């Protein structure tokens, strides 16, 4: 338990408020050396966990942003063709045998390291963040599985590259596609929900220190009521922070129904679709503000 609380405190020092359950999962991940799969709605702070973990462990954060059509060349490695061509031209007048020249051309100097290769090549284990893995297609997921099981990859021209150290792998998913069972089985799992009132208040206080006391409470109360409404896109934690900063910038230091007009001006930081915006009339805002 002390270990868990210790890690929780360290994460807080790095600017991340974590529940003890999450801290326990992170400890287990460090112990067992297995990847951690984080699921949850957009904007609940999944990516931040990896950043905070890197800070706590005083190590590099290597990030691979997944997207549809992501392939081996942009995730693992690619040869620097232009430099290789230049080298070929320069080597034309070299007297060395061809085999040696070829070895030279396909050496690490001409290898462009993409995030995955970079992560397994670090002396000190880095945090490898594979962000939004559900956006990549199934083929890439299978490739990833191979990497995650033996931490090695093969480059035909160079041979097999083994991991110098095992990276700490954090995988996030927004659930736009069902992930394969094989991937789930290899990972520890954590579902991140929207933060509770107390947690969100702590986050606001740590990230926007100017918003203190009653004002911070009102901001969080307001956002939490907005989340209970039926919206297309619920505001995440980042939106709360933006909004608090926006309010402060406009010199609003208390939320009440008198200031509904001015609150309306700042809602663009909180509400991100047109349909949702039309749901927020002056009356609605005044009603929520009055209850804060």
């Amino acid at each position, binding site marked *: 338990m002390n270990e*868990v609380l210790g890690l929780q405190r360290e994460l807080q020092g790095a600017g991340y408020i974590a529940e003890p359950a999450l801290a326990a*999962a992170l400890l*287990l991940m460090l112990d067992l050396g297995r990847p951690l799969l984080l699921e949850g709605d957009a904007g609940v702070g999944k990516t931040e966990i990896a950043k905070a973990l890197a800070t706590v462990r005083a190590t590099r954060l290597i990030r691979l942003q997944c997207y549809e059509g992501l392939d081996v060349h942009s995730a693992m490695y690619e040869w620097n063709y*232009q430099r*290789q*061509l230049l080298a070929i031209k320069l080597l034309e007048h070299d007297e060395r045998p061809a085999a040696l020249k070829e070895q030279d051309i396909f050496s690490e100097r001409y290898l462009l390291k993409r995030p995955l290769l970079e992560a397994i090549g670090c002396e000190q284990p880095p945090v490898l963040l594979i962000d939004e893995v559900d956006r990549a297609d199934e083929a890439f997921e299978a490739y990833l599985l191979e990497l995650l099981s033996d931490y090695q990859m093969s480059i035909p021209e160079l041979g097999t590259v083994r991991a110098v150290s095992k990276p700490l792998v954090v995988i996030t998913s927004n659930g736009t596609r069902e992930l394969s069972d094989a991937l*789930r*089985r290899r990972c520890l799992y954590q579902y991140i929900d929207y933060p509770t009132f107390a947690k969100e208040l702590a986050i606001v206080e740590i990230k926007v220190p100017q918003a203190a006391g009653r004002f911070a409470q009102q901001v969080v109360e307001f956002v939490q009521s907005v989340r209970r409404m039926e919206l297309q*896109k619920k505001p995440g934690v980042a939106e709360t922070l933006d909004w608090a900063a926006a309010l402060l910038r406009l010199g609003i230091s208390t939320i009440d129904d008198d200031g509904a007009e001015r609150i309306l001006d700042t809602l663009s930081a909180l509400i991100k679709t047109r349909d949702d915006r039309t749901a927020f009339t002056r009356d609605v805002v005044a009603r929520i503000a009055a209850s804060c």
Partner: protein
Amino acid sequence: MLSVASSAAPLAAPLRAFDPGTALRTRLTGFAGFLRANGFALGGADAVRVLQTTLRTGVLDGLVLRWSLKALLCGRGDEWRRFDALFDSYFLPPNRTAFTQSESVATSALDTAQAATAGSPAEPAAASGQGLAEDAGTGQARHGASREESLLSTDFRDLNRCEDARGIEALMRRFAQRLRHLQLRREARFHHGRRIDLQGTIRRSVASGGTPLRLAWKERRRVRPRLVLLLDVSRSMSPYSFFYLRLARALCAELADVYCFIFHTRITSVAQALRDPDPWRSQERMHLLAAGWGGGTRIGECLSEFNREQSARLVHSRTGVIVVSDGYDTGEPRLLAHSLQVLRRRARRIVWLNPLLHQPGYSPQSQGMQAAMPHLDLLAGGADLADLERIVADIIESLR
């Protein structure tokens, strides 16, 4: 075999002599089995991992153990939400007996059901001959009528009926194959094509000393659209709902990227239940999901719930949404129009199949249909297999 027997031996030990270490180990490894019995996707190795984890965390602090095992054993959101209750019921004595008992009763009932019907898979081969010819619509209507008195407990045996199973499977296979030919705007390297892949060409030219002798090509990659099926299972649709459910299951078996929902007054996802490889377990799971089956319809509300809860996750610019409904709606038509409009903006296409469309004397005059029409890419019939056969080409064309 020998090594398995020797490693299993300590687990049997507590029966003979009480040893706290072994008892604890058995209890902990039993937890993985308990979760598996409750539908968690766990394998044999997980029991070992439970022990490994416990060695690190210790068992004295219940909370740390709970959090660690939760991270270790859960794999998806619904497991995550159910875990705490199961953990309590396993490790806290009073609840546990009642819970596990009911669980074991449920599984044994399933087992006998499976054993009793084990002979039936041989039947489709015999029945498929005339099965193809038999009109699915009338067959379903007969079953629909017999279900009238037992609306509360719908009989899901229809889901496993074998007549024209072959026909449905064949049709869905053809549908899936033709979907494969739809092209979308993604490019990949290709061995021939119309456009030159510059980077690939340079890469190839390295072999010939920088002279691009062979060209590399780019071609549009073929990506099948994702399909979302929304099936109306209200009372007015009852002659068709099982037919469509079976179609959906055959389609799920062909394609990975299909998501199926049923709706009446609420909307429920049945994708997982339909994908269950064991037909009788699938039937059992449908039972649990089907509360409200055969009741009224509130299409608009269901669609707006779908928009709210699911569409952000499921519907993207490659998604074709197929709604199967007769359009008889007890809800507000304006809401239906609005939610279809919202869905239309997100999805690639919306296809509406109305089984009544080709019935003599029917015209889509109902308020629901009128509200929906402006937002559809295709409105088609589809009362039975032969009918669907005719419109498959149209559906494919409209998904393009």
